[in-house]
């Protein structure tokens, strides 16, 4: 039997496998610590504090980054009431829990992840579909509580079912979606034109 050279031997590759795995995993851990520090709500501008729902959110093209970035400016309290940090977090939390409890993700995507039967919700708060700022909250509240009754479908015939969403849950969902709309997603979805951009192009 010819001897197998070292670089083709079982022990060599065993060691290589262990080292490669360990180093990759270690790098992932380091990157995870860094990312977690940068995406906890309010720590940087990437993922805003929950109280961002008290503000006006829009997007503007940032030439140096070559993409649209969120701009948070001026007060625009949700449902006409400025909330404390705790109240804001509580409302967004109700929204996120409702989002999970109603299984929204198996029709929609958010941040582009989920199902493809209904539109992406990442920037739904800013979608021109809500006509303008004054109508938006009223339309959203009505829609979530009675989706089939307020369906638009745009000619697809697809309607959102009645999920038994209460008014409180609807308010929570809207807060959650408003907060989500302010996350800096590196330019996704591409070329998105907000409701404001549509108003004054």
């Amino acid at each position, binding site marked *: *039997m010819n*001897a*197998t050279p070292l*670089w083709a031997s079982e022990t060599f590759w065993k060691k290589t496998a262990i080292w490669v795995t360990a180093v990759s995993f270690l790098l992932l851990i380091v990157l995870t610590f860094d990312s977690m520090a940068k995406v906890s709500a309010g720590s940087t501008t990437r993922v805003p504090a929950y109280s961002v729902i008290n503000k006006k959110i829009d997007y503007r093209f940032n030439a140096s980054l*070559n993409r649209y970035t969120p701009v948070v400016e001026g007060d625009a309290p949700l449902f006409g009431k400025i909330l404390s940090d705790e109240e804001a977090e509580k409302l967004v939390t109700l929204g996120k829990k409702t989002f999970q409890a109603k299984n929204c993700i198996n029709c929609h995507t958010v941040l582009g992840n989920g199902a493809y039967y209904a539109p992406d919700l990442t920037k739904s708060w800013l979608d021109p579909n809500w006509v303008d700022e004054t109508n938006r909250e009223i339309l959203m509240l009505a829609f979530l509580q009675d989706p089939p009754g307020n369906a638009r479908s745009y000619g697809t015939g697809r309607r959102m079912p009645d999920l038994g969403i209460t008014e409180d849950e609807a308010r929570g969902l809207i807060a959650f979606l408003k907060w989500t709309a302010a996350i800096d997603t590196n*330019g996704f979805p591409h070329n998105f034109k907000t409701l404001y951009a549509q108003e004054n192009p």
Partner: protein
Amino acid sequence: MIEPVQLEDFFLNVFSAAVIVVSGAGYAGFYAWGKIARRPGFVISAYASYASLAAAVWVLAETSHFEGFWRVAAGLMLIGYFAAPLAIFRLCTAMHAGEHSEHDRPIANQQQEEEQS
């Protein structure tokens, strides 16, 4: 920073990506088969596959507007796809080196063939 693909380049972009992986496997496969079967024709097909891979990398890099880091990555891709199959083939031969002193085929299968003939 990235510069997204232009609308009119969509097809070229994804098609070249597919060509890279398929030609990569074609190159590796033809090379291995050519060596085993000692058929130089296959080795020529292997290099032709590599040429199509290289062209596809170029198209991908252009349509994806590669700059800086991404250009380096495309260069590494060219080198990696060239060298990896050769390395893997040598690895396969070296691993199997000890084997040919024994039976190449499992004994039971030989019996089976005899039974069937």
